[in-house]
């Protein structure tokens, strides 16, 4: 039984490592590859939860994470970036060093909060939850410190990965896993189709800063 928890912790920990890796990538292609790696790890973690908690329906979640977030979205985003020939490099609001330090602090905060707070729940659940919260916060951080539209979307999807990990860690949580997967599909498609193309169409760039110049109130 303890081996089961060790494997799920290992996978969650691996996801956390990819979250950190997302923060220091220099090129968009590398960001997308790292995100794909994170999603594939998520698929493994969910599959492991499905077999160890004996909830076969979670295999669907795992499969969707693998196919969609692990393969389809990264490949499609990568093609778009190459085809449009825009911004091969990631634009940073703060440097890698500071981003990583803040990331470390957030991870520490997540561990401290949940390990201290959730003492009533079974220990494995709260450890998984602490890792998931760290992944969510790092995704959030990535959305803040990376300015490009593609990297912001990746930051958000990484947050979503953390959420799914948290939801599968909460034993027996009904319906929500499927729904949240459906949402990530929806959001991903939506972001992809509507925003990336429309922004490109209007600005010839997907740099968010270009948008900031158009603030309605200073017209």
């Amino acid at each position, binding site marked *: 039984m303890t081996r089961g928890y060790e494997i799920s912790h290992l996978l969650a920990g691996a996801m956390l490592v990819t979250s950190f890796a997302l923060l220091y990538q220099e090129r968009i292609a590398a960001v997308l590859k790292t995100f794909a790696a994170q999603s594939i790890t998520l698929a493994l973690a969910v599959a492991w939860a499905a077999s160890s908690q004996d909830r076969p329906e979670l295999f669907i979640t795992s499969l969707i994470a693998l196919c969609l977030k692990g393969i389809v979205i990264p490949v499609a985003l990568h093609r778009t970036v190459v085809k449009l020939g825009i911004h091969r490099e990631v634009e940073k609001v703060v440097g890698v060093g500071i981003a990583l330090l803040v990331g470390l602090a957030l991870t520490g905060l997540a561990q401290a909060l949940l390990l201290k707070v*959730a003492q009533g*729940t079974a220990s494995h*659940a709260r450890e998984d939850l602490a890792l998931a919260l760290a992944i969510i916060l790092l995704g959030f951080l990535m959305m803040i410190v990376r300015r490009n539209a593609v990297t912001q979307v990746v930051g958000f999807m990484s*947050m979503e990965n953390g*959420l799914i990990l*948290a*939801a599968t860690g909460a034993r027996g949580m009904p319906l929500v896993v499927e*729904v949240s997967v459906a949402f990530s599909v929806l959001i991903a498609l939506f972001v992809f189709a509507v925003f990336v193309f429309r922004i490109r169409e209007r600005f010839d760039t997907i740099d968010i800063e270009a948008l900031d110049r158009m603030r309605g109130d200073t017209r």
Partner: protein
Amino acid sequence: MHTYQIVVLVPYAAALGLAAIPGYRSGAIVNVLASAVTLAAGLWLIGEERTVGPYAIVDEFNVVFIAINTLVGFTTSIFSASYIGHEIKTGRLPPGFVRFYHAMFQAMMGSMNVALVANNIGLIWVGLELATLITVVMVGLYRTPQSIEAAWKYFILASVGISLAFFGTILIYLAGQPALGEGVPAMTWSLLQGVAARMDPAILDLAFIFLLIGYGTKIGLAPLHAWLPDAHAEGPTPISAVLSGLLLNVALYALLRFKMLIAGQPAALDPGPVMIVMGLVSLVFAAFMLYQRRDIKRLFAYSSIEHMGLMVFAFGMGGPLANFAGLLHMVMHSLTKSGIFFAVGHVAQAKGTQRIAEITGLSETHPRLAVAFALAVLAISGMPPFGVFASEFLILTTTFAREPWLALLPAFGLLVGFGALLMRLQNTILGKPTGPSHRVDGSSVPIVLHLALVLAAGIFLPAVLVAWFQRAAELLG
């Protein structure tokens, strides 16, 4: 079939139907009819028996929200019929988009109603998120650089809110698990409330923080409000009306449901003081921000932040009287603010701009519109005899009775906001008319209806209504 199922299913069915209706005119008619049926069901629900099922709940508290939701949804559909017609005529909106617009409007109403009747904390989240995502698309509808920027900002901030609120929901589920076991019961709101006293207070504390930040983003509480003014200013005006009048309420509703839950565990953190602080910060901040607005829809968006802040403050104070005042203020604000957006929609179409400086002298060029607009502005700035005055007065007096010093802050914020609205809008109504001026042929029924309701509520609140609101306020604790 229960009435609450009609409230949810009719909008969704209408959305499917509207997606297939190509014409603007027939689409608008179906839109109004569907909203009328939903309104009828929503009002019928008031008199019906209260039910608690595994997935749905109808109690005194959410009936208030459902009634106001379906009512404003109906009047907005009437306003939208003439407004969108004008947008197509002037070529701002391609006709092909109308089908999409109508379908999305109904889907949004349906999703909000899902969140309001849901007895499952996961379903509340799903409904609110669906409604939010739909409004994101609607805000970007015009495809101008500004509207895309607004939609992007809204999307980014809303999705962060989505994630944090969902994490809070997972934590509540974990807190309920020891008492209710795994599966659906631990996500059912009414069952969770029953076992609140046995939940781990530390998890509840943490969950409430996530829920407050997550749903607080949707309520538009400062400093999480950055999306709100842009989203209001750049989308079609019917959507601004629904955003301010309804979607903010639904987010507030979700937060209040969790407040009720957490109140059941005395050892957990008291949500009251946190909500008081966030409400006051939003109120005072938004009141000052009103002075610098140049865009008329942005101005009223900040005014919405101000009023949502006041409501959160009132609910944070708690107790039967403050809750009553908060509920009353929510209803009054919904009616008045959506009425204002109807008027602003006509004003913007009359003058061809949303810039306050270029909207001048409406009393000369469009006297009837000017009167309606002026009355609505007086109502929202809390002038007697309108209903907003009554609810604001009640909030201030109850606060004064309990914490005299604390009452000074909201009173100050409201005064500042009042001055700003007067200063910014005087010229639009009384000044010398300049610039282009077009005829407005939109329906005035929605504005008149809303103003009449707010005025009636300010002059005389029927005892039945008072008793109903008191029961709802008591549930809030």
